[in-house]
């Protein structure tokens, strides 16, 4: 009976251990590398499209080829470092994106500019109010009312 309990407990422990390994979080270092890799990948995809556009205009965009090559090498290096980390910490690497993500610049910028925007809006309200008072006070309606 005791043997069965021991067996059951050890099975449970193994199961929990494998589950923990499967959902192992990506370490901070790897997350930073992933962000950098994905950013470079997006740059590379945009460079691909720029090169296509140039070629469709009959050009031979040598500078763009050089950019693409440099970006591809950087992505490869980061991918190798990520694979090394993945082996060490036992996590799955998210795959590389193959499509260009549409970037909403305003949404991206908003967290960085929110305070400035709020301050500008308050200053704008004050400025508009005083400007309006000045404008309407100086208005001469005599010509308009001459009928």
């Amino acid at each position, binding site marked *: 009976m005791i043997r069965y309990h021991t067996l059951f407990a050890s099975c449970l422990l193994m199961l929990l251990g494998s589950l923990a390994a499967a959902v192992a979080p990506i370490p901070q270092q790897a997350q930073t590398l992933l962000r950098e890799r994905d950013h470079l990948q997006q740059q590379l995809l945009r460079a691909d499209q720029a090169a296509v556009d140039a070629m469709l205009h009959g050009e031979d965009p040598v500078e763009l080829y050089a950019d693409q090559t440099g970006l591809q090498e950087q992505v490869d290096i980061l991918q190798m470092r990520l694979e090394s980390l993945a082996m060490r910490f036992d996590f799955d690497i998210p795959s590389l994106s193959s499509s260009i993500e549409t970037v909403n610049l305003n949404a991206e910028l908003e967290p960085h500019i929110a305070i400035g925007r709020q301050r500008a809006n308050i200053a704008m309200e004050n400025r508009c109010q005083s400007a309006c008072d000045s*404008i309407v006070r100086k208005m001469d309606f005599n010509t308009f009312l001459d009928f």
Partner: protein
Amino acid sequence: MLRTWILSVACSVSLLGGCVSVTHVQAGRHDQFRNALVDSCRSIQASDFHAARDHLDDAQSLARGPEQAAKVVDLGLMLDGAESLHEGRPQEAANSWLSIRDRSLKGQVIALADAQGIDIYAISQAQNNRQETSQ
């Protein structure tokens, strides 16, 4: 003969009286309309936009003919713009003021705004550009 003569004189007098009365009413209405506009203009100058709106409503109810109606519309646009600017919405102010048809009123308000560092045309153009970009 005398009776006919008296009757025709009486008819003429009453007809003349009626004409004078109509003219008097029309002149009275015109003055009332003008006074309402004057009061509205004064309230705008004092930044009392609520009172200006009330006077403008009075003027609108008294307006007769296209010229007076146009006056009401233009002063309404002037008032809309002033209210918008006062509440910190320069784009809306620019749109209202640029829609004014009275040249004197429009030129004056744009020049005064410019003197305050507000480029009405540039604001309106920037707004149109933003709308085109978003579409």
